[in-house]
């Protein structure tokens, strides 16, 4: 039963390659809806997996799955509007791989076996590479090449990490199955030296996919070259999936009593990413790359929160959920901007508030949310992380974090103001955008932002309990 959630999009994805264009657009939305229903069913009563050795429903998996489902459904609606307004040469390949991408990411959230998780993350690379190459230009080819190469090396490092895990099982005399749920109870018997080595390799490997600095170099290129719905999926969901791999491994580390070691590593990578994003975001000239750097920043925040532990983990999970919601809405809005102004450069846009008012509302609200303004959830998440950092004595980390947040806000705000209010630098060259803001192209963003807003004030009990369960497993809590 559990497996149906990723088998369904896999089958429809294959179908989308051969069906007529109009049908496969509908199929995209339909699959999104079915997927959402299936994942809600998983929330309601947790069925057993057919292959219980390989797949399992875990709290952190459920959370990511719900985020994936909701995002994909809304992005699918946006995509129908996007494809109507923006001709793609190979539309069937695009829709087909979108669905296969959904299938592989769902598999990541549900896998329990260490190698199944690895295969699923590998498969996400394969399914998303054609999405980045959709425009078939020289630059998109370069971005795809970089993406595949860097992520393949990353995934190879994760395999080395998994190998070291088996070695630590061997030396510790552990005969349990190689799944996260079977290893966590016996984590204390694992050989600590090889477990540590394995964790480092896994963090480097999956961290590459997650966009942690200094392995992040593929991310801005891939996000800026992919069509906007695909960028929204990459940023909103794929990065979370990679984080899930680190999260699950960290669970074993915490159970083995090595949380100090794993925490330090995550804090270092987290801070590096935040600082790298702050450095690069200031001089960005393209708005999609700017959003990509903001994703690197947020992944850094999530890693930092996980590393600090306690309340920080709770903050990290909150940040993860809200980052997905808000960032995907921002990428969808950036798709509208790109279709309107036909240019990626910030300098060639302007006065969006006047010319594309509906997109402006979504973009500006998204900007406020991602910079951590109070009515949106990232504010709460970041606040928790800072509180946890001070409480646990990570003063230096907290100071670097707060300083970088200010820098990023300043850089981000300046660029957003230029896009929204300033007159274009060259009014001759920048004509007023010729773009109709159809409901399918703005409502998905509104719903995403609204969800983030509502979740900030009211969290349903089931959701709250699942977050607490997930956080509890790696030694976090609300204290």
């Amino acid at each position, binding site marked *: 039963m559990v497996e149906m959630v990723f088998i369904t999009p896999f089958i429809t994805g294959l179908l989308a390659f051969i069906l007529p264009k109009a049908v496969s657009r509908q199929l995209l939305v339909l699959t999104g809806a079915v997927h959402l229903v299936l994942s809600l069913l998983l929330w309601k009563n947790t069925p057993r997996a057919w292959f219980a050795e390989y797949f399992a429903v875990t709290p952190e998996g459920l959370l990511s799955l719900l985020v994936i489902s909701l995002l994909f459904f809304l992005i699918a609606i946006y995509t129908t509007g996007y494809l109507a307004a923006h001709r793609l040469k190979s539309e069937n390949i695009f829709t087909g791989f979108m669905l296969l991408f959904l299938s592989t990411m769902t598999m990541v959230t549900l896998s329990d076996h260490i*190698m199944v998780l*690895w295969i699923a993350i590998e498969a996400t690379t394969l399914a998303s590479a054609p999405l980045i190459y959709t425009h078939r230009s020289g630059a998109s080819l370069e971005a795809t090449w970089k993406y595949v*190469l860097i992520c393949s*090396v990353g995934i190879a490092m994760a*395999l*080395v990490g998994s190998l070291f895990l088996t070695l630590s099982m061997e030396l510790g005399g552990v005969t349990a199955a190689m799944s996260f749920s079977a290893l966590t109870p016996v984590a204390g018997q694992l050989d600590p030296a090889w477990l540590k080595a394995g964790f480092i390799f896994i963090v480097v490997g999956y961290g590459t996919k997650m966009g942690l600095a200094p392995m992040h170099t593929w991310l801005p290129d891939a996000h800026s070259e992919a069509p906007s719905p695909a960028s929204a999926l990459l940023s909103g969901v794929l990065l979370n999936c990679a984080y899930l791999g680190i999260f699950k491994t960290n669970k074993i580390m915490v159970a083995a009593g090595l949380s100090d070691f794993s925490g330090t590593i995550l804090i270092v990578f987290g801070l590096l990413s935040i600082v790298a994003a702050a450095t690069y975001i200031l001089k960005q000239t393209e708005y999609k790359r700017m959003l990509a750097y903001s994703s690197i920043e947020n992944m850094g925040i999530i890693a930092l929160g996980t590393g600090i532990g306690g309340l920080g983990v709770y903050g990290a999970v909150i940040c993860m959920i809200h980052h997905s919601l808000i960032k995907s809405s921002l990428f969808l809005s950036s798709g509208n901007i790109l279709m309107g102004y036909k240019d990626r450069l910030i300098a060639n846009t302007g006065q969006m508030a006047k010319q594309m008012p509906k997109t402006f509302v979504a973009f500006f609200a998204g900007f406020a949310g991602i910079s951590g303004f109070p009515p949106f959830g990232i504010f709460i998440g970041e606040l928790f992380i800072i509180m946890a950092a001070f409480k646990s004595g990570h003063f230096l980390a907290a100071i670097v974090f707060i300083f970088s947040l200010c820098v990023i806000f300043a850089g981000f705000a300046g660029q957003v103001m230029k896009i929204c209010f300033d007159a274009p630098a060259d009014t001759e060259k920048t004509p007023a955008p010729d773009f109709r803001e159809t409901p399918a192209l703005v409502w998905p963003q509104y719903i995403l932002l609204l969800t983030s807003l509502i979740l900030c004030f009211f969290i349903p009990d089931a959701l709250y309990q699942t977050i607490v369960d997930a956080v509890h497993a790696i030694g976090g809590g609300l204290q």
Partner: protein
Amino acid sequence: MTLYTVDTLLSLVLLSVLFAFGSSRVPALIKVMAFQGIVVSIIPFFITPDMETGAVIFTIATLVIRGVLIPLSIHMAIRKVAIQRDVSPIVGYHASLFFGLGLIVAAAVISRYLNIPSISDSQLLFPAAISLLVTGMFLLMARRNAIAMVIGYIMLENGIYLMGTTFSVRARHIVEFGILLDVLAGVMIMAVILQNIKQTFDDVDTSLLRTLKE
């Protein structure tokens, strides 16, 4: 006796690593890669006395893929699309060779300190695995030619395979599944991409791929 065979084969692998550091032409690199692929995939036959049928099939499949299919397809690719044969190094050959020597010595020293019971019989298994892995990484970073980078990636995978097959039975299962999927998919996609790089840029020199920055 078999142990000596393993160490003899592995010493040849270590020599081929040095050769990979020093060679300036893609065809030479392909030969080195094929040789390493074959050696790495027959090692399990020597160190495991009684292998199951499944393991034998997997090992032979790896042998065919690593030793024959991939080198042959890369060879065909460079002949068909007239790709530049020079590896265009970022780090010079002398420096590369020096790095290679240092690497082998360091790998040998490190492996003496590691506590891995299953490979204590053979002196060279772990040094060879590490050397292959790092050589692959080095070629990925220090060569501009895209084919040389792909070859580097496959050497890295050979290193991982050697490491996995020698660690334990459980690790071998993992490596078999993972690496086959990885190699097939990775190379297929890279081949497609290379083809397109060729068409778009008329060359596979990745230094031309510098339009996107930061």
